């Protein structure tokens, strides 16, 4: 095993790659006495960071609310670089896909942008009559002190629709998780609990932290329907704002992306007494466990029986369909460099394909995230925090995984090294959640790992 050799060769305290002194503690190899990497620290200035800003964090949490407009109060760049970044699908409205901006100019910086913001909100409401308008603060609107809360309140009185301020000034923190929380706060303060539940059943739930990227939600929803669980709202994938407004009436919150949304579930528990359970629909076993956990929560004999039926038929289908992929993938190695949640939740899913996770890292992980990663991966696995693009390249070169799972910015770093890549972020092309999702997942991983093009990358012209 390559990793173990490396572990043997080098004393553990020494850095695994050449990097800045202060960054060396941010990567480690899991072993008996090794704990977790240093994390949740400010980004080193001057590096090519893979992290983003607080505004970005808030935007990706709220953007999947499809009947709403998302208005960026700032210079044009904040809108024009982010308006289509989330691959969240919609089964109904497409309003959320519009890139709206107040396009702050020099004059607004000098005299304040509140007036322009107000006029823009009124105009957008007239143009589209949206479910709500979410108004995002940016670095500059924050620095010049525009009171977006006051403007939102005033425009809400005039328009009669929800105008939700999101205090997401980009510079607030080096960790975009803060942005996720700010997005959740906007929902807690201005949306959830503002409408009474239209009809109740004993089995009402919210799916929290599921953003319907590539249609993930649609792989899960039918399973719940069959179980007899009633989904009041998903927060926020493929949702309408009116549905989220009724979320306080649920009996249970199930949390898929725990990184962004545990915060929301905890707050809802405090405020409305709604308990929550953590679920994970990436991978077969995890899907099964998640379904059983929900059925157990409702403690309903019939539901449990139905759930077992669903599991049985799902399992049957999956095992048969992934056989071919598994054959080719068994024994291959994977490196994960992803958002907090997936760094541990994907480890088991890869094991189910016969693959071996040899590195796992996140850009914005906190201590508890790394604890979970450490508990999930096997000894010898590299755990890395906030790797910049140079470090990532060095790690890939050193450990030569058969696959990197990451996002758009990392894609070509990996491919230029001849290392197959699979997007598990906003840009992925298929839904990966649930039983059917797992089949797509296996297929896509196979398409990367087993493609013959990667056999060519090391060949030289005059070799033959």
């Amino acid at each position: 095993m390559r990793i173990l050799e490396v572990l043997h060769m080098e004393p553990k305290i020494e850095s695994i790659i050449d990097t800045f002194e202060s960054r060396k503690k941010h990567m480690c190899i899991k072993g008996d006495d090794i704990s977790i990497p240093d994390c949740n620290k400010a980004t080193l200035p001057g590096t090519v960071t893979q992290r983003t800003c607080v505004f970005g964090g808030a935007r990706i949490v709220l953007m999947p609310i499809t009947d709403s407009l998302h208005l960026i109060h700032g210079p044009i760049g904040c809108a024009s670089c982010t308006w289509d970044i989330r691959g969240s699908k919609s089964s109904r409205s497409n309003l959320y896909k519009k890139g709206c901006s107040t396009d702050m100019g020099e004059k607004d910086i000098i005299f304040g942008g509140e007036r322009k913001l107000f006029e823009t909100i009124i105009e957008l409401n007239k143009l589209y009559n949206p479910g709500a308008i979410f108004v995002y603060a940016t670095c500059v609107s924050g620095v010049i002190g525009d009171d977006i809360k006051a403007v939102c309140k005033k425009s809400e009185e005039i328009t009669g629709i929800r105008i939700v301020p999101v205090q997401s000034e980009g510079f607030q923190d080096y960790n975009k998780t803060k942005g996720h929380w700010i997005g959740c706060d906007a929902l807690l303060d201005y949306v959830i609990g503002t409408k009474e539940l239209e009809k109740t059943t004993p089995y009402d739930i919210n799916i929290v932290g599921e953003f319907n990227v590539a249609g993930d939600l649609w792989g899960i929803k039918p399973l719940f329907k069959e179980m007899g669980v009633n989904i009041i709202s998903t927060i926020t994938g493929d949702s309408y704002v009116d549905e989220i407004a009724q979320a306080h009436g649920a009996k249970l919150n199930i949390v898929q992306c725990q990184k962004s949304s545990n915060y929301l579930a905890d707050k809802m528990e405090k405020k409305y007494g709604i308990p929550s359970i953590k679920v994970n629909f990436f991978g077969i076993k995890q899907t099964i466990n998640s379904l059983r956990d929900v059925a157990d929560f409702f403690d309903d004999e019939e539901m449990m029986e139905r759930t077992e039926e669903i599991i049985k038929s799902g399992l049957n289908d999956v095992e048969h369909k992934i056989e071919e992929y598994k054959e080719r993938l068994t024994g291959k190695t994977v490196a994960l460099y992803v958002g907090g949640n997936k760094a541990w939740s994907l480890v088991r899913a890869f094991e189910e394909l016969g693959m071996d996770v040899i590195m796992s890292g996140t850009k914005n992980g906190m201590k508890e995230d790394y604890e979970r990663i450490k508990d999930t991966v096997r000894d010898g696995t590299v755990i890395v925090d906030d790797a910049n693009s140079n470090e990532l390249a060095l790690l890939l070169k050193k450990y030569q995984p058969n696959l990197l799972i990451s996002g758009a910015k990392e894609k070509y770093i990996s491919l230029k090294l001849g290392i197959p890549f699979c997007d598990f972020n906003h840009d992925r092309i298929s839904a990966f959640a649930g039983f059917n999702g797992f089949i797509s997942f296996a297929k896509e991983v196979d398409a990367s790992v087993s493609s013959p093009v990667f056999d060519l990358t090391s060949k030289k012209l005059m070799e033959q």
Partner: protein
Amino acid sequence: MYHDKKFSVINPSKMCQPMGAIQALLGIKDTIPLIHGSQGCSTYMRFQLTRHFREPIEVASTSMNEKTVIYGGEFNLLKALKNITEKQSPSLIAVTSSCLTETIGDDMAGIIKKFEDANIGKELPIIIPISTPSYAGTHIEGYDNTIKALVEYLSTPSRANGKINIIIGNNSPADVKEIKALLTELNCESIILTDNSENLDAPLSESALNLYNEGTTIEEIKDTANSLGTISLSKHADSAGVLLEKKFGVKSISGPLPAGLENTDRFISSLCKFDEFEVPESIEKDRGRLMDAMVDAHSYNYRRKVAIFGDPDFVSGMTNFTSEMGMTPTILCTGVESKRFNEDINLISEKKGLNPTILASGDLYDLHHKIKEKPVDILIGNSYGASIAQEENIPLFRAGFPIFDRLGAQRISVLGYNGGINFVDEITNTILDYYYDEAGYEITEEESHESTRSGLFAEEEV
């Protein structure tokens, strides 16, 4: 339905200044672009650039946070310069500002001076501050300001070099290659500002991950003061040319973008104003092939109504080109407010007998509504036009930035005679695909009604 829109921008057709700066800087050898601002600026721009070029894109950030915003960004900028110098030691660090650091009033030049003073005796990269406030102008000004700053800081008069400076503007690596090939055939030595042709269309190799090995060198930028003249392919990127003329008497010519036959002819005659170039037979042949392609295609293109959106020089260049081909440019949209753009379009319209709708400082909302009022047969622009094209059931010919829903954006070429041939063939084939059947007959009104897709836009507006 209420359509008139005064305040909001909906689906922008422009980006901010730092984006234009980065686009210019990616064509320079051994250079690190550093954005002095929040992390999101560099990360989201890298996201846009990387999905367009399908290359790793390296842009460093000073990663400002709440504390540094309150006390000023000096600490972070100094630290960033130190880290870059120590770890990567590039030849040049180009520091661009952002809306945040401009608003809090960071004196980048002063901070850089401080860094240099503190490191006297050490070998430092050249460090250039570039002011690119995101709240003023657009990526067009960002590109222009960047080339100007580079030339302003670096150009040094010495001996005449007999070269011609070419300011490329925000064009694809394939276009840069085409212009370079044209210059080589003319036996014209040049300095390309900036040359992204290798960096942003790199072979599969590890070396693409390090500092760029190719591109315009610092020495070349220094030497721009000694050239015979400057030609800016884009009129909106000519400030450096104007500066060189004023400061060193290096004559400057602005545009037009060499797209199509007439404009490429003009480019070559502009070059000939600076020196006596002999046009070789190979160029005459390429020119003849472009004419041949246009003649072959003419019947499919005649009076096809076209809407074009993108950067101002791209739109005016393509307006001239498509009207040469016999098409009818009908709606022209750019995100930038520009007198020169309006003048250009008016001039072309007069010459060609056109009467297009001009949307300057427009967005894709405006463009879409105009298309509904004045239907067109084809749309030319970046990937953001795809949803409009789908809803209106017209084809989109992808050119410009960003293109993320098709492969090969770095290899789209429309400039010069060869780029022109590509364009004529490809747009005509697109028209054949959409408006003609498999036997080559034009699809009749009756047939096309059956296949009309009803768009989401239509539902939403009702």
